[in-house]
């Protein structure tokens, strides 16, 4: 094994070990944080773009300024807000 091959081998091992530890220890935390972030995103769209669902909101003038940034999220947001909720949701 040349010096270079050795180095790449060790760096691979290091990657695998860090990924493994990340998966065991912190992946769940990161996932949870992103999930909370996602729920808050939908809450945020609700209080700024509520009119899209018929919930009146305060100043439509300034929401229009934010509209371009939420265009890609609008359809998933609507689906989530209008979805019927049942018991299985609690398990998810």
């Amino acid at each position, binding site marked *: 094994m040349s010096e270079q091959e050795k180095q790449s081998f060790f760096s691979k091992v290091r990657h695998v070990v860090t990924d493994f530890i*990340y998966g065991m220890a*912190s992946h769940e*935390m*990161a996932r949870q*944080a*992103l999930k*909370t*972030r996602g729920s*808050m*995103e939908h*809450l*945020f769209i609700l*209080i*700024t*773009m509520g*009119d*899209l669902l018929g919930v009146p909101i*305060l*100043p*439509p*003038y*300034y*929401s*229009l*300024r*934010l*509209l*371009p*940034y*939420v*265009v*890609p999220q*609008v*359809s998933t947001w609507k689906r989530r807000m209008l979805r019927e909720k049942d018991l299985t949701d609690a398990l998810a």
Partner: protein
Amino acid sequence: MSLAHVFREHPERRYIMFGGKGGLGKTTFSAATAYWLAKQGKRVLVFSVDPQASLSDIFQRDIFGKGAVEIMPNLYVQEIDADEHIRAYQDEIRQKIRDMYGFDKIPQEIEDYIQAASAEPAMEESAIFDQVVDIIVEGGYDYYIYDLVPLGHALYYLSMSSVYDQWIDKITKLREEMREYEQMAARIKREEELPEDQILAELQDIRYRISTSSSILTDREKTAFFFVLVP
């Protein structure tokens, strides 16, 4: 005591509002004050948000919705056309959506929302309010003379800034909290760079504009409010 006396004594009062019932001479006073100040060599902007504004009449020029028009050296007059402003604003939003996502056409759902939002009763007032914010934040004049609409309306405009302030404050806080979660996740995943949150940046800009203008309009030192009355 003449009106000129007030301006000589208090040169720091640079934002001047004339309010009162309809037909008592708000516009006349605004125009006269602006004329006098301009003659003293000050750069003056006199503006009105009234859709039936009479600044056009008093200066005998068609200035409605044409931005700040120079009437004579140092004297600028502006009449805000809310409808035109809303139209331009909508187009700007549409263009932004097209540019950001490379759409040829705005998705129906989004277009419907843009239309509906503009039909809201608060839209016109907000648009007017925003234009006044624009004028004040932009600066460039020594004096600003605000020829208000008849009283009830005027108070409504002035109170709007505090309502907006609170609303923006709340959603900015929510957005900042969201940012914390995002940063936390990025830290755990050891991601180096997190793209800037553009919504947060917009909100902060809106908040800056509203709070700047409302702090000026409620500043005891800088702002004078004249009630025009029948003796």
